[in-house]
């Protein structure tokens, strides 16, 4: 199934794009993160907060086709 992934901050630079369409092999957020981690050299992907359709989600959250997943690294600057 197809999932749209929005990348924020350095994840975007590392992927070279702001949005990805992922043909997901699996069903959970964790599956998605593993799949992304295998394709791109992301730094700190495990620390990124995950939102599914503008609501925070955890690794076990089940995804549906057409879901929009945002990956949001927390940052400490201020």
């Amino acid at each position, binding site marked *: 199934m197809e999932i749209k992934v929005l990348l*924020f901050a*350095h994840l975007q630079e590392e992927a070279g794009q702001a949005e990805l369409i992922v043909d997901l092999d699996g069903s959970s957020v964790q599956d998605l993160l593993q799949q992304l981690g295998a394709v791109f050299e992301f*730094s700190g992907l495990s*620390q990124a907060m995950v939102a599914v359709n503008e*609501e925070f989600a955890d690794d076990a959250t089940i995804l549906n086709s057409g879901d929009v997943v945002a990956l949001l690294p*927390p940052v*400490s*600057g201020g």
Partner: protein
Amino acid sequence: MKEGIKVDRYSRQIRFRPIGESGQQQLAEKHILIVGAGALGSSTAEMMVRSGIGKITIIDRDYVEESNLQRQQLFSEEDVEMKWPKAAAAEKRLKEINGWVDIDSIVGEADSMMLQNLVAGVDLIIDGTDNFETRFIINDIAFKNDIPWIYGGCVGSYGMSFVMIPGKTPCLQCLLRKVPTQNQTCETAGVIAPIVQMVAAHQAAEALKILTGNTEDISLGYRTFDLWRGQYMNIKTDTMHNEHCATCGVDASYPFLQKENQTKTTVLCGRSTVQVRPHEKKTISLQELALQAKKAGITVSGNPYLLSFELDDQRMVIFHDGRALVHGTSDEALAKKLYQSILG
């Protein structure tokens, strides 16, 4: 602090209907604590002081450096030349802006003991820190003392803001689960001034809502945005509350209030600087210390708040509370050694 209340001064804010005369009056009776007088602390402090808040306590451990001027709006070139501590420099400018606000500036480390002492009577805490360690301490303090607080963070052109209200919203622990270890962005991504203002604008708007009793209007989402890439999101956090959370759960243990005092050296992110803190609070006679150093042939300069020592490859700045910043290294052991070489 001047006395009385001037009304024409706030006329544009009073005409904003959700605030009005009564909101303005409430604001004048409120006391906020701003932790950190860097980019976000500077900007939120200025907005709150211009808005007519009653009292601000602002704490910062650092002094003004040249590279701060690009985005930290309370500071001028003179503050850099004088190596003025940020909290003191902030107070100076804030008083020029609004002499009617009670401003209490503290040059020191926002550790758990310090913050616990500062929050008495505080209505709101605004996050102006640059590290997650301090944010988790604020989080514990805020939930323990039933005080709302507003997280803000930014790096590059990317930033976020989130309001936490004890009993109503999840806390920072619920959201992040653990203290994020630093990733490369902090060292490499830099930061531009507009994202600072964007995050600060969100923090200050929510602060005005909270302090004027407009609780229905408070934004409960986690707002995150990137000004360069044109991204903006408002993320619901309802599902994030963890009822076993150590900070806001049923058996809260406030973990960051316990272990925090043990930290003695900290590498400051992206700056080749190590902070060294003494075991216990002390007060140092900077004058005596300067004399000693001069006798030993060390180049030293300073002001009433701090002394700066030129060492071989590093520069060390010592504050009157015994805290030091060792610039030019990320080696904590070396920093400690240099510190002890001066202070014994």
